[in-house]
C-alpha cells in the first residue's frame, strides 16, 4: 500500500468517520471514537463538515489493519467504535457514513481531499435524506439432501485370488446411482433457493428507492440447518418503511423461506457509486 507524506514514527493522522451537513458539535463531544486520547471534532469544508479524530499514524497503517483484520476481537472493537460515532452523528443530522479506515496525513490534506469530493457528498446526502437502509436476509431450510447411507459398507464377495473380500458386482453401480440422487436433490434445492432469492429481491426492490445484493455471509452465522440464499440491502423512504414487515410476512408464506429484516441502518451501502 502506498504511504506518502511524513513517515515519522510519532506522526499523527486524521481519522474521518462521516460527513454531515451542519452537525451539532455537542453530539460528538463525549464520544470516545476510534482511539483514546484525542477528542472528536468537526472539520469544515465548504458547507459540509467531517467528523474527525486525531490518531497515531503508526496504529493505522496498512500493516496495522491487516493484523487487525485477522483478529476478530480487534476487528469487532474497531467496527463498533466506528459505527457508534456514525450512528450518533446520523441521529442528529443528515450524514454520509464513511467506511472503516479513511485516514489522512493531517487536516490540510483531509480538507483538500474532502473538499474535492463535495459533489459526491452532496449527491449522497440528497439521495439518502429521508431514507434508511434495511437489510434483508433470506434462508432456506435444510431438507435432507445428504447421503442417506453415508459410509455404508457394500456387500462383499470373496476375491478369486488372495482370499480378501471385494465389493459384489453391481455395488459400484448402486453407489453411483445413490450419489447421483443426492446430487440431483442438492441441485434442485439450489435452484429453489435461487428462485426464492429472486422473488424476495424483486419484491423489496419495488418498495425501495434502491437495492443492492451483498456477498452471502459465512455459513457459521446462518447456523445449523439452514442456508443463506440472499443477503440484500435496500434504501427505503421513511414513508414506506412500515410496509416492510408485512411484505416480509407475505413472502415468508409464499416462498417457505426464513426472512430476517435488520434496520434501520445509517445508509452505508448507498453512498458509493451504486
Amino acid at each position, binding site marked *: 500500500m502506498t504511504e506518502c507524506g511524513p513517515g515519522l514514527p510519532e506522526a499523527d493522522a486524521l481519522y474521518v468517520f462521516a460527513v454531515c451537513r451542519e452537525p451539532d458539535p455537542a453530539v460528538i463531544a463525549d464520544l470516545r471514537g476510534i482511539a483514546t486520547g484525542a477528542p472528536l471534532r468537526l472539520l469544515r469544508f465548504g458547507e459540509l463538515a467531517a467528523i474527525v479524530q486525531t490518531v497515531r499514524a503508526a496504529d493505522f497503517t496498512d500493516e496495522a489493519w491487516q*493484523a487487525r483484520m485477522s483478529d476478530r476481537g480487534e476487528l469487532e472493537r474497531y467496527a463498533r467504535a466506528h459505527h457508534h460515532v456514525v450512528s450518533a452523528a446520523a441521529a442528529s443530522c443528515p450524514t454520509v457514513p464513511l467506511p472503516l479506515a479513511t485516514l489522512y496525513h493531517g487536516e490540510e490534506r483531509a480538507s483538500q481531499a474532502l473538499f474535492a469530493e463535495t459533489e459526491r457528498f452532496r449527491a449522497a446526502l440528497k439521495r439518502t435524506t429521508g431514507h434508511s437502509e434495511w437489510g434483508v436476509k433470506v434462508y432456506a431450510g435444510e431438507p435432507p439432501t*445428504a447421503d442417506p447411507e453415508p*459410509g455404508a459398507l457394500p456387500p462383499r464377495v470373496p476375491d478369486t485370488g488372495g482370499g480378501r473380500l471385494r*465389493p459384489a*458386482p453391481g455395488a*459400484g453401480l448402486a453407489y*453411483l446411482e445413490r450419489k*447421483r440422487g443426492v446430487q440431483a436433490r442438492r441441485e434442485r434445492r439450489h435452484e429453489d433457493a435461487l428462485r426464492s432469492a429472486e422473488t424476495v429481491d424483486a419484491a423489496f426492490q419495488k418498495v425501495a428507492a434502491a437495492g443492492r445484493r451483498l*456477498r452471502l455471509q*459465512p455459513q457459521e452465522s446462518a447456523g445449523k440447518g439452514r442456508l443463506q440464499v440472499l443477503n440484500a440491502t435496500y434504501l427505503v423512504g421513511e414513508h414506506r418503511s412500515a410496509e416492510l414487515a408485512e411484505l416480509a410476512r407475505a413472502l415468508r408464506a409464499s416462498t417457505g423461506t426464513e426472512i430476517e429484516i435488520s434496520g434501520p441502518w445509517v445508509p452505508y451501502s448507498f453512498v458509493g457509486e451504486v
Partner: protein
Amino acid sequence: MTTSRLDVDSDQLGRDLVALVLTVVELLRQLMERQAIRRIDQGDLTDSQVDEIGTTLMLLDQRMAELCEQHGVRPEDLNLDLGPLGSLLPRD
C-alpha cells in the same frame, strides 16, 4: 508477517495440516464423483465400466472415512473457508 499470532500447539498444527491435506483429497474425490455421474448421464459408458468406476469411487469414499477416523478429523472439518469466496466444498 507476524507469527506471534499463531499460538497453537504442535499437535493442533499437525491436525490442521492433516485436515488440509485430507480436504484436498476430498475435493478431488468429489470432483471425480461428479465427473463420473456426468459421464453416466451422457450415456457413453458401458454398465461394467460404470460399475468399475463406481466401485473405485466407493472404496475411495471408505478410505477417506478411515483416514478421517485415524487422524481424529471429522468429515465436517474437511473444508476450507476462503472468506469472500465462500467455502471450498459444498456445505449441505
